[in-house]
C-alpha cells in the first residue's frame, strides 16, 4: 500500500517536475549569450598573442568584439570603455562609456594612431608612422603639449538635431583678424572698405615671360598675420619614418593600455580589419599603396600585397577568408581572397552611382574611407563621393552609398537614361526655371548633410547606416534598404550646432571621423577630430553628452584653419565642399577637373566642374538670350586641371597655379575659392571682411599643421643614385635645370612646352606655359601633368622625348633608374 501510494505520488508529480524542468532549461537557454550570426561582425574568442593568464586559472570565455572593423573610435566588448585614436596628438584615449564619472586615461602612441579594433583583452591599433628621432622632435614641436587626463573636460549636454546653420553674413567691410572678438561682441564699428584692386582671376602668363615676383602680403590689402604667429614646418623632416606599425595593447585597469607587441608594416598604416576567429589582421598602408596580412598570434606579417593608390577601409567577410578594401581615390575596390592561406589580390570594379551617371559618361570617385557589410553579408556598402554625378543643383557630383552585391560582385543599382519616362506640370511662366533647379529627368539633388562621408556603421535594428559626415559636422542616418541610401536620409544629428560668426569654424563637433554603436544600438559615439571631442548621442532623442579630449596644440589661427579645412558649410569658401573633399588629408583626389567659364548666381567666372555634363548645372539660362546665341556658337572651352597635392608642398611664397598666375598663396586661395564656387557676389571686394581672415587661418594651417605623408627614411640604393645622377646631368636628362633640388624640385617658373595631345572631352589649351611643378611626393600623386594624361612615372618618362629636358637618349635601364629616383623624392 505504502509503495503503491509512493508510486502514485511520483506518477502525479513527475509531469509537473518535468514541466518545471523544461521551463528551467528554456529560461537558461534564453539567457545565455547568443552565438555570433553571419555578417554581424562579432567574433569567436580570439587567441591572445602573448598569453598573460595565470596557468592555474581556468580561461574565461572571451566576449565577442563590437565590431571587427577598424575605426578611430571603438567600444570595448563589454561596452564599458571607449578607445579613441587621436592622430594629431599621437595619443590613445581610454574613456568610460558614460564619458563621465571616471578620469580618462591617455597613452602616448609610438606615432600617430589611425584605427582601433578592440578585442577582449587585446586592443589592436594601426600607427601611421614610427618617426625618426628628428622627425619626432619636429612633430612634437608642431603639435604642442602632450594631452593629459586633466586636460579633458565635459561640455554641457546638447540636442543634436538638424538645425539651420547660423553664420553671420559676410560683412563686406574690412575687419582685421585680430579684432575678431570685438567684431563678435559688437564693440567694433568696421571702417569703410579700403579701395583695393580685386585680385585678378586667372591672368595668363605670357609664354616665355618670367613669372611675376610675389608681392608682400601687406601690399595686397589683406591677410596681415593676426592672432598667433604661425610656425611653418619643414616637410622634409617631419615626413621621415621608420615605417608603419600594427601595435597590440593589453587592457590594464590602472594604465588603460599597455603595449604588448608591434608588427612593422609599410608606412602610413591606416585601415584595419580582423578575421572573426581573431587570428589574422589586415592593415592598409595608404600612401605606400600596400596591404599587409598579419598573423596576430605570431605578431608577424605573412603577406605584403601591392594595391592601387590610397587603400583605406578594410571589411572582412564573415567566413574570414575574404576582405574588401576601399580606396581614397579611384572607383574600384580591392578584394583579398584566401586570407587564411596564401592571400591574393584582385580589383573589383564598382562604377559609382549608376543612377546618377550622365548618359555616355564615366564618373570618378573619391573619399571611400570606409565600407561595411550588411548583417547577412549579401551587400557591401561603400559611402563616398561620386565625382561628376548628376543631381539637381550638382556641379561636382554627389555623396553616394554604392552597394556591391557580394555574390555577383556587381553594383545593385540600375543605370540612368535621359530617355526615361518623365512628366512635369506645364505651368505658364514657370518653364524658365534655372537649370540648377528641379526639372524632369534629373536625379535628386545631392544631400549636403552627407558631404565628405568619413565613417559608417550598420544599425541592424533599423536597417540604416549611420555615417559620420565630415564636411557637415553631422551624424547622418540613411536608409540601407534602398537603391542608393544617400538619396534617403532619415535623420541628421547636427553635432556642431554653432559656428564662429566671424571665422565660420565650429566650436565643437568639428569633422566627425569615426562612429561606433552601443550593443543595443540606441547610442552612437562619434569622434570629432578637428575639435578633439567625443559625442555620445542618444539616437532616439538626439540628446548628446560631450567630452573634450585635448586642446589643439597648433597656434590659434592654424587651429582655426584646421577646423575650416574640412568644413563644407561656409559658403564663403566653396559651393558645398570643404577643402578636404578634394584634398583629403591634404593630398589629392586623383581626379582631373574641368575648368571653364560658367555663370553662377549671375556672375561669370572660372569654375570647376566634375564632368562635361555637369556644366548644365550652372545657371546658364539666366544669361540674356542674345548672349546665349553667341555662347552657343562659341561654347566656353573646358580645360583639364588635375587636383594638386597640398600637404608639404605650400611652403614657398609663390607663385602658384598651373600657369603661375597667382603671385602668392593668398591670391591662389582666393582664386581657388572662386573655382570652387565660393559664394560672394560678383564685383565685391574679396580682400575685405571676414573673408580674408579665413584665408589667413587656412594658410597658417597649411604651412604649420597639415603634415605630409610619412615616407621611409633610408639611403638611396645604387639604382636610385644612378637615377639621381641622370636627373642632374645637363648632358643626360637635365631635369634639375627646372626641377631645382634646392627649391623643392621646382624653379616655380612657367615655360611654354610643346602641347600635349588634347584629351577627349577637353579643348586645346590657350596658354601653353605651365609652371614647373614640385616633384616632392610624386610617388603617390598619379596621374601626372595638368591633364592627368600620364598614368605612371614610367609612362611619363618613356613618352617625354625632349619635351621636358631630354629623356629620348636614355636606355631602358636609365629610364628605370630615373623613375626609381623620382619615387624617393
Amino acid at each position, binding site marked *: 500500500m505504502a509503495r503503491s501510494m509512493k508510486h502514485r505520488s511520483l506518477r502525479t508529480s513527475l*509531469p509537473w517536475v518535468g514541466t518545471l524542468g523544461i521551463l528551467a532549461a528554456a529560461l537558461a*537557454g534564453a539567457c545565455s549569450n547568443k552565438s555570433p550570426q553571419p555578417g554581424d561582425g562579432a567574433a569567436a574568442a580570439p587567441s591572445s598573442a602573448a598569453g598573460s593568464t595565470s596557468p592555474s586559472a581556468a580561461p574565461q570565455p572571451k566576449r565577442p568584439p563590437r565590431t571587427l572593423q577598424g575605426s578611430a573610435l571603438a567600444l570595448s566588448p563589454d561596452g564599458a570603455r571607449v578607445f579613441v585614436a587621436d592622430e594629431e596628438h599621437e595619443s590613445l584615449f581610454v574613456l568610460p562609456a558614460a564619458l563621465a564619472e571616471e578620469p580618462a586615461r591617455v597613452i602616448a602612441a609610438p606615432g600617430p594612431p589611425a584605427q582601433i579594433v578592440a578585442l577582449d583583452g587585446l586592443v589592436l591599433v594601426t600607427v601611421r608612422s614610427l618617426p625618426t628621432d628628428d622627425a619626432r622632435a619636429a612633430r612634437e614641436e608642431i603639435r604642442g603639449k602632450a594631452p593629459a587626463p586633466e586636460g579633458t573636460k565635459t561640455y554641457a549636454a546638447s540636442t543634436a538635431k538638424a538645425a539651420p546653420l547660423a553664420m553671420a553674413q559676410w560683412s563686406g567691410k574690412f575687419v582685421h583678424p585680430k579684432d575678431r572678438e570685438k567684431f563678435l561682441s559688437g564693440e567694433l564699428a568696421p571702417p569703410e572698405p579700403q579701395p583695393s584692386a580685386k585680385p585678378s582671376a586667372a591672368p595668363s602668363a605670357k609664354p616665355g615671360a618670367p613669372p611675376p615676383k610675389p608681392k608682400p602680403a601687406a601690399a595686397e590689402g589683406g591677410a596681415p598675420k593676426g592672432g598667433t604667429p604661425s610656425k611653418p614646418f619643414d616637410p622634409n623632416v617631419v615626413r621621415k619614418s621608420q615605417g608603419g606599425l600594427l601595435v597590440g595593447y593589453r587592457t590594464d585597469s590602472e594604465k588603460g593600455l599597455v603595449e604588448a607587441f608591434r608588427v612593422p608594416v609599410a608606412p602610413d598604416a591606416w585601415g584595419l580589419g580582423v578575421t572573426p576567429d581573431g587570428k589574422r589582421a589586415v592593415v592598409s598602408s595608404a600612401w605606400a599603396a600596400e596591404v599587409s596580412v598579419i598573423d596576430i598570434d605570431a605578431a608577424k606579417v605573412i603577406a605584403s600585397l601591392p594595391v592601387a593608390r590610397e587603400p583605406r577601409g578594410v571589411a572582412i567577410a564573415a567566413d574570414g577568408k575574404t576582405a574588401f578594401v576601399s580606396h581614397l581615390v579611384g572607383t574600384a575596390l580591392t578584394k583579398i581572397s584566401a586570407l587564411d592561406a596564401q592571400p591574393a589580390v584582385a580589383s573589383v570594379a564598382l562604377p559609382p552611382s549608376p543612377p546618377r551617371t550622365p548618359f555616355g559618361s564615366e564618373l570618378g570617385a573619391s573619399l571611400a574611407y570606409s565600407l561595411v557589410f550588411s548583417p547577412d553579408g549579401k551587400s557591401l556598402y561603400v559611402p563616398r563621393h561620386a565625382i561628376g554625378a548628376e543631381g539637381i543643383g550638382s556641379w561636382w557630383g554627389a555623396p553616394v552609398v554604392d552597394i556591391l552585391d557580394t555574390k555577383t560582385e556587381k553594383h545593385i543599382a540600375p543605370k540612368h537614361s535621359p530617355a526615361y519616362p518623365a512628366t512635369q506640370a506645364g*505651368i505658364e511662366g514657370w518653364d524658365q526655371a534655372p537649370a540648377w533647379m*528641379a526639372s524632369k*529627368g534629373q536625379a*535628386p539633388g545631392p544631400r549636403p548633410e552627407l558631404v565628405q562621408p568619413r565613417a559608417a556603421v550598420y544599425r541592424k535594428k*533599423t536597417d540604416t547606416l549611420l555615417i559620420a559626415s565630415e564636411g557637415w559636422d553631422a551624424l547622418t542616418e540613411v536608409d540601407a534598404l534602398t537603391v542608393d541610401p544617400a538619396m*534617403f536620409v532619415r535623420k541628421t544629428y547636427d553635432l556642431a550646432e554653432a559656428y564662429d560668426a566671424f571665422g565660420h569654424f565650429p566650436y565643437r563637433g568639428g569633422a566627425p571621423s569615426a562612429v561606433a554603436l552601443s550593443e543595443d544600438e540606441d547610442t552612437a559615439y562619434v569622434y570629432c577630430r578637428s575639435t578633439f571631442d567625443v559625442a555620445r548621442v542618444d*539616437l532616439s532623442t538626439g540628446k548628446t553628452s560631450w567630452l573634450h579630449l585635448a586642446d589643439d596644440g597648433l597656434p590659434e589661427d592654424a587651429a582655426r584653419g584646421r577646423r575650416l579645412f574640412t568644413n563644407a558649410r561656409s559658403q564663403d569658401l566653396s559651393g558645398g565642399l570643404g577643402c578636404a573633399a578634394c584634398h583629403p588629408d591634404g593630398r589629392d583626389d586623383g581626379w582631373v577637373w574641368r575648368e571653364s567659364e560658367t555663370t553662377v548666381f549671375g556672375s561669370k567666372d572660372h569654375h570647376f566642374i566634375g564632368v562635361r555634363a555637369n556644366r548644365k548645372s550652372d545657371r546658364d539660362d539666366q544669361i540674356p538670350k542674345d548672349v546665349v546665341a553667341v555662347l552657343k556658337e562659341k561654347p566656353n572651352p573646358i580645360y583639364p586641371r588635375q587636383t594638386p597635392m597640398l600637404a608639404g608642398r605650400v611652403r614657398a611664397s609663390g607663385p602658384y597655379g598651373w600657369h603661375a598666375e597667382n603671385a602668392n598663396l593668398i591670391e591662389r586661395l582666393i582664386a581657388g575659392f572662386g573655382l570652387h564656387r565660393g559664394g560672394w557676389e560678383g564685383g565685391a571686394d574679396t580682400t575685405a571682411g571676414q573673408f580674408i581672415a579665413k584665408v589667413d587661418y587656412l594658410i597658417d594651417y597649411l604651412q604649420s599643421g597639415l603634415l605630409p605623408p610619412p615616407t621611409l627614411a633610408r639611403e638611396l640604393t645604387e639604382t636610385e643614385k644612378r637615377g639621381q645622377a641622370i636627373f642632374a646631368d645637363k648632358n643626360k636628362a637635365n631635369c634639375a635645370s627646372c626641377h631645382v633640388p634646392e627649391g623643392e624640385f621646382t624653379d616655380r617658373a612657367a615655360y611654354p612646352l610643346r602641347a600635349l595631345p588634347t584629351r577627349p572631352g577637353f579643348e586645346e589649351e590657350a596658354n601653353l606655359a605651365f609652371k614647373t611643378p614640385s616633384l616632392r611626393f610624386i610617388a603617390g600623386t598619379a596621374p601626372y601633368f595638368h591633364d592627368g594624361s600620364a598614368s605612371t612615372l614610367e609612362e611619363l618618362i618613356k613618352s617625354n622625348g625632349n619635351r621636358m629636358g631630354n629623356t629620348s637618349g636614355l636606355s631602358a635601364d636609365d629610364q628605370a633608374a630615373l623613375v626609381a629616383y623620382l619615387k624617393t623624392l
Partner: protein
Amino acid sequence: MEPNRRPRVSRILALLGGAALLAAALLSPAVRASDPPAAVSAASSANAPPAPLPTLRGADIPTETSKEPKNSEWKDGKKVQPHRGEMKGCEFVLLREWLRVTCKRATGATLVAGDPEGVKMFTSGRTTWDENDLFTVLLVTPLRRGRSQVYTFLDVESLGYEGSALGEGGAMSILWREGQEDPVIAASVRPD
C-alpha cells in the same frame, strides 16, 4: 476513471506546455525590413487610429505578367503603403503585379534609373498655378522580381521675389534584388 488515463493526459499536457514555452523562448524573430526611426509614429490619441495599410509582400505579386490595368479596373486594387518612409498626399494601389502611385500636390515625376518597361506617368491640371486646385501626378509601373527603380517627384519651390518654380519634391526607391523575397518600397521627402 481508469487509473492510467489521468497520468497520461497530465503528462502530455505538461510536455506540450513545456514544448510551447521552449519554442517561444528559443524562436528568434523573423528577419524582415524594419522601419527606420522616422517612419514610426506613436498613436497617442485616445481614439484608436485607423488600421495601417499593409505593405507589399512578394507573395502578393504574381510572377506571371499581365496587361496594364484599365482605369476601370483599379477600383479592385489593394491600397498599400511604402515599407519605409512616407510621401504625404500619395496613395499606393497594387493590382496584380501593377503598382499605381497617385500624388496630390506633386508637379512632376521622373524615372531616374531602372527598367522603363511598362512605366507610365501623367500630370493632371491646368497651365496655371492655383493653391486650391492642386496638380496630381499619376505613375504606373509593373513590379518585377530582380528589377529595382528610382523615381524623383517634383514639388513647388518658392524663389522669393522671383516667384515660384518647380522644385524637388521627394524620391522613391523600389528595391527588389534577385533572390529577395519581398520588394522594399522606400519613400522620402526633401526637407525644407
